[in-house]
């Protein structure tokens, strides 16, 4: 247990020591999105009746920040340790693959939630927010962060160079996030793209998260929650199997 606690603590310390870059910067980015898109689209777009576009946008931006930062934390920590070689400090001790998995993923979840809270604290000033179902907010934030943290772990294990990791991020994570309905409701899309969106697990995370605020969503939150949990379990078992086999870590 001490081994897990220490690795978790070390991972938290790692991002907290450079919090300007890992926490403050993503908060600022999200605020800029809100100011610009909110300014341009407020009054032109109404997704749900009685919900202004800026208010609609806030949960999307919060969730996007949670997801991106959870991914960034586990993936960049692993790839940096791999490239600088200091991953041996984690590979030499008697840490089990579950301990390594748990510590990296939990620390990434913490970073995602910290950044998400920061984004919410700042953006909520610009919109009138409601909290219809706070439990759904917490559940989807945690599950979404855990999914992206696990994907970050997988990407960090697989990538051998920074540009491979960047490719994973730019060609998989970014499109999946942007096309999940952060800035719009998928109901406004043509039927074909609506169907495509329903194949994107990220859509369920953001839709369920938004339900927690407005009590309105494209999909029943229970269904979304089920989809998200199944997706998480698949990723977790894959990641743990990679760690256990030593794939790309213990040659």
């Amino acid at each position, binding site marked *: 247990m001490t081994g897990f606690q220490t690795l978790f603590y070390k991972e938290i310390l790692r991002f907290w020591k450079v919090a300007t870059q890992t926490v403050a910067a993503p908060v600022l980015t999200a605020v800029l999105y809100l100011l610009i898109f909110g300014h341009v689209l407020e009054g032109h777009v109404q997704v749900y009746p009685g919900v202004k576009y800026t208010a609609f946008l806030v949960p999307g931006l919060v969730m996007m920040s949670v997801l991106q930062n959870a991914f960034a934390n586990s993936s960049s920590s692993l790839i940096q340790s791999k490239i600088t*070689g200091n991953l041996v*400090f984690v*590979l*030499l*001790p008697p840490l089990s693959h579950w301990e390594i998995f748990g510590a990296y993923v939990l620390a990434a979840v913490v970073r995602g939630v910290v950044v998400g809270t920061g984004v919410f604290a700042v953006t909520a000033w610009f919109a009138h927010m409601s909290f219809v179902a706070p439990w759904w907010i917490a559940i989807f934030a945690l599950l979404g962060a855990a999914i992206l943290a696990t994907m970050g772990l997988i990407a960090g294990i697989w990538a051998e160079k920074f540009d491979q990791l960047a490719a994973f991020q730019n060609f998989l994570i970014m499109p999946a996030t942007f096309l999940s309905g952060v800035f719009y409701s998928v109901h406004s899309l043509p039927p074909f793209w609506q169907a495509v969106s329903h194949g994107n697990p990220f859509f369920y995370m953001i839709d369920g998260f938004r339900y927690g605020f407005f009590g309105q969503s494209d999909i029943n939150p229970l269904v979304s929650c089920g989809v998200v949990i199944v997706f998480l379990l698949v990723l977790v078992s894959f990641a743990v199997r990679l760690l256990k086999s030593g794939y790309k870590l*213990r*040659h």
Partner: protein
Amino acid sequence: MAAIQIQRVEKSYRSLKALNGVSLTIEEGEFFGLLGPNGAGKTTLISIIAGLNRADAGSVAIHGHDVVSDYRRARQLLGVVPQELVFDPFFTVRETLRIQSGYFGLKNNDAWIDEVMHHLDLTSKADANMRALSGGMKRRVLVAQALVHKPPVIVLDEPTAGVDVELRQTLWKFVARLNREGHTVVLTTHYLEEAQALCNRVAMLKGGQVVALDTTSSLIKRIAGSQLIVRLASGALPDELRPLVLHPDELTPGKRQYSLRVNEYTEVELILAKLRLSGAQIEDLHLQQADLEDVFIQIMEGVK
């Protein structure tokens, strides 16, 4: 029980056979040297012992615990100083050592951390960030990290490569002390005089195979022997001494200096008697002790 038991270990990287059936038993309390040229497979073998690499075939056990199936106990018993100068730039020396202790399940380890830092002359750098340290200091931290959990088996992979004299002495004094206190030490190095001074037993690797394995002293005696170097003022080397000449080019006509192999000191008398009988006049004469370097060169060149 053996400190490290290596059985028929094989490892390939694509078409390259890095280890080709290595078997070694290192007993508790030994100071063991693992020698060989670059690319002989030393680091691969150490990585397999440490669990950083996985063997394709064969097995390794630390105090009887298999490094794959019983890795938690095996790794708890093992401290490894990696060859590469790696560090985590986010932390100070003390943080680095506390974190490493935690990975091994140790919570309040400050007394031992202080002692290790003291012996490695690191105390004054305890609160310095790892980035700010010189290469030699970073190397000391790597050694300290390997020792935070007081492992009974310590493996050092070229710990003195590119390191100044002072650190080498500090390091060897400390490691020799740990060995006297009962820790098993396995060392790879390119400095053969270090290996000769420290190791009670050595294995030489070449092309992924063990080509020599013995106590350091008997290896030197058995493989290299000593040399009697004779320069003749007049006369020729008697025929019966010719087989003792170590370097064949000394037998070409016109040469007057010969290196003769001597296994026992009594042989010196015989050689001198034969020279006297043949009427040769000795101009100069000295006995040269063989060292581990001679053994190394002879074995690596395939001359036995």
